[in-house]
């Protein structure tokens, strides 16, 4: 075991593990969640129900779960990675299967107290699986084509299943998150350069095919692209939401209109104001200062993960911490770009702030893994 090789002596036991927790990270997560509670309270018109109170309960549950996961040694989780990955693939297949067999568009599994979306779970299990894979792989073989093909397959499998749901947002997060772990593990730059080049080429080909005989995508898909580039061309359809979102966000100004004073959200211009578009409410009511504070908190979370990963000699713990932090980064970066009109509208929630049980619990569980890697990291030489 690579870990045991390092320092059996430094393995913490019992309560001393609690002291080794990355408490700064715990505080940062709580601070972000508090932003969420405030906004959910405000969006409900100054009421704990229907959103703020259930969200708080789930946060408390998630924090408990995080601490529990953190207390379990990291090597246990590494050994679980394959199992977890297979389980999440089975769950994805399960909802596909049941979704097809007359239960309607069911994308979740009912656990009684909450509904678990396997697609949320798969983001984390994929990262775990890839980290465990590179921990096992001889680092000299990392860029060998055969050993690059295997992780690609591991990424494509859940991505394909999620795409059929269809859930474009999650699919993008899976590809980018998985790619990031491959990059961190040391896969050669050339692979990434080729993929990026191919992507740019494809986009160019598609765009230039418009109106020609060999047009590659349908007209309505082109119109969607137009809408993203200039929302005002479709003020009542897809462009409507993004236009309203930008107006609300922009009208916040430096200090915002004040807590619970947002006119745009109040007047019901905005859709999904408690889930995907909650950042709009926050930016309108708390202004630039509020929005940049939240962004800073997110940046600090990423920074603490980075520091923890770099100081960790364990390859699995280090890669997983970074993979989770990148996934987390992608969550808020995609969501914020979307509501600010920098990216097309795909369904990605604002992590720990948007209302939603699955995403919150899965994220906190993931940070449990990060904590476990931190607590059990081999230190010194």
């Amino acid at each position: 075991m690579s870990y045991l090789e390092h320092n059996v002596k430094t393995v913490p036991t019992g309560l001393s593990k609690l002291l080794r927790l990355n408490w700064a990270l715990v505080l940062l997560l709580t601070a972000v969640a508090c932003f969420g509670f405030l906004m959910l309270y405000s969006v409900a018109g100054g009421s704990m129900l229907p959103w703020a109170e259930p969200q708080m309960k789930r946060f408390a549950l998630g924090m408990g779960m995080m601490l529990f996961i953190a207390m379990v040694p990291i090597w246990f989780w590494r050994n679980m990675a394959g199992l977890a990955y297979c389980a999440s693939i089975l769950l994805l297949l399960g909802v596909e299967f049941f979704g097809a067999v007359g239960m309607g568009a069911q994308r979740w599994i009912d656990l009684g107290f909450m509904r678990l979306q396997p697609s949320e779970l798969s983001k984390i299990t994929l990262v775990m699986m890839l980290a465990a894979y590179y921990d096992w792989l001889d680092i000299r073989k990392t860029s060998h084509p055969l050993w690059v093909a295997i992780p690609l397959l591991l990424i494509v499998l859940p991505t394909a299943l999620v795409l059929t749901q269809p859930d474009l947002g999650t699919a993008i997060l899976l590809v980018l998150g998985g790619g990031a772990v491959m990059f961190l593990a040391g896969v050669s730059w050339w692979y990434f350069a080729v993929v990026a080049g191919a992507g740019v080429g494809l986009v160019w080909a598609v765009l230039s095919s418009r109106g020609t005989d060999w047009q590659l995508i349908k007209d309505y898909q082109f119109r969607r692209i137009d809408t993203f580039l200039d929302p005002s061309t479709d003020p009542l359809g897809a462009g409507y939401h993004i236009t309203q979102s930008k107006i609300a966000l922009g009208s916040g100004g430096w200090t915002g209109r004040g807590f619970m004073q947002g006119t745009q959200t109040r007047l019901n211009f905005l859709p999904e104001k408690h889930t995907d578009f909650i950042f709009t409410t926050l930016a309108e009511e708390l202004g630039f200062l509020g929005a940049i504070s939240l962004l800073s908190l997110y940046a600090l979370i990423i920074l603490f993960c980075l520091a923890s990963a770099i100081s960790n000699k364990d390859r699995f713990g280090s890669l997983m911490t970074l993979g989770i932090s990148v996934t987390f980064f992608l969550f808020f970066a995609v969501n914020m770009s979307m509501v600010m009109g920098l990216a097309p509208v795909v369904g990605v929630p604002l992590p720990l702030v948007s209302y939603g049980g699955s995403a919150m619990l899965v994220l906190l569980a993931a940070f449990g893994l990060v904590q476990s890697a931190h607590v059990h990291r081999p230190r010194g030489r």
Partner: protein
Amino acid sequence: MKRSPKDTEASVRKITRRSLVLAGAQTAVLAALGLRMRQMQVEQADEFRLLAEENRINMRLIAPARGLIFDRNGAPVAENTQNYRIVIVREDAGDVDEVIARLRQLIIIDPEELERALREMKRRSPFVPITLTDQRSWEDIATVAVNAPALPGITPDVGLTRSYPLAEDFSHIVGYVGPVSDYDLSRIEDNDPLLQIPKFQIGKTGVENKFERDLRGKAGNKRIEVNAAGRVMRELGRDAGTPGANLQLTVDAGLQNFVEARLTLEESAAAVVMDPRNGDLLAVGSAPTFDPNAFVRGISVADYAGLTDNLYRPLANKAVQGAYPPGSTFKMVVAMAALDYGLITPNDTAYCPGFTTLGDRRFHCWKRGGHGYVDLEKSLQQSCDVYYYDLAQKVGVDKIAETARRFGLGERFDIPMSAVTSGTMPDKAWKSERYGTEWLVGDSLNASIGQGFVLASPLQMAVMTARLASGNSIVPRLVKSVDGIEAEIEGATPMGFNENHLRLVRKGMYSVTNTRRGTGFNVRIDDDRMRLAGKSGTSQVRNITAAERARGVTQNADLPWERRDHALFVAYAPYENPTHAAAVVVEHGSAGSSVAGPVARDILLYAMHGKLPPLESYPASQRGKVGQMLNSMNLRQTTGAAARDRA
């Protein structure tokens, strides 16, 4: 998996290098996000704020048309009429005082109304349109429209408002609507955005209130495009919403009008007419009454004080809210209890010397000289109190109360009117809980003649009469259908009394009004197809004190109005095949058979004929006086006949 220290070093170095590269990319994205925020929220903030104030695409709520209310024959009872009003938007007006001053040179605005609007305006956001004045004439609207350039922020507008074409007749049943108030908002848990519309009308009392959710409908909305000045450029889309459900009442507008007019001839009275076959309430009258349209328009303080200070309480719906001692009309229930428990036979007699002695107290019969030997039929016919004092001791209050409840006394009927009372049907447990004292035999004696603790509303007395007449446990029904869906008829099943017992009691009621010695012989109907069976009641409001007796006060006429006896009468007709049952209470009317009785007869005759009854239905000796009275009544001419033609 073993790994050499050298490999570990290499791994750590690689991860560190690559993670710093990735961190660099992340920093770039974060910086882009931060800059975008700054650009939108700081540099372009004014631009976006302008867009937000004058949101290019605006959503406006469309209030749905409130559901209409009809009588049983389809005559409109509550409808929506066009209401021209003048609306101001504060932020468009600029100098509000100046604009309003200019407006007041053009049209006359009631200062009180204006002040209310200004207060409203201060509480609302600057972009919310506030109604300055409504119920305007078309001329006023035209004047404002022509002078629009001088009146920024002011627009003439047309909306729907509630109106009650039958005015006073249905005010107690249907109630009225009024602008939603802060008190309403705090009381009802409802986040319907419609309630946020200033002056949105919601049901305040009666059916309008109880069926608020059905009548209100669902809000629609329209998306409109506005320019930078806030002017509507075009409508982009519209969802009309769902209009409220229409209601049909069981009440007959023609009969209701007659009942209200007839009751108005007394000072303060209430009456309920129902169909004993299915429980349909055909008329629910309470006099004096008031004009609900005054409340919709916004009643003035002086007019409102006039209603609340009135000794005869016009705002109260005495038919369902008033609880009165039922007096002798309760005797049928006591007789049914005694028969049902097998404690008497119809031929058993009691001797009435004019009083009963209980301990050292005397309980008097209304007839001081006594009735002599009295059997069941005679006890009802002549309303002998002593016979019932006797029954009370035999049967006991608990069995009487048990039977009374089967007739609906003490029960709060679930009909959509405000403050429906349950009355009081006392028993031993009730008294010990309420007063902490034991039930006395004297209490039973008082209860047996419908005095003491017993209280019932005119509605309950009508139900009691209808159940006696039909033998079925019918339940009163006020709403016939909601949105075309017929409401179900409850309780058209037998109550479970022996039919012979019911027949005996009905025979007693028949004797009251159709035999020369009956207490209600004066209110007989002289038409074999429509014979009336009834029972009078006169209930004491308070005993005449010894001091007053010493002063020589022995008659009601000597007392002030509010201390005179209540006059009651319950009746049904036709005797053989009852189609109508009624209860009438004339507050402080002094005498049941001579005051309340004629009211009940007039109402039942009108109900059976479906129009003003011919004088031939009345006993020959009374026709002159009755004819004069009927002619003097101020009836609404059109409704009944017109509605029937339509149906």
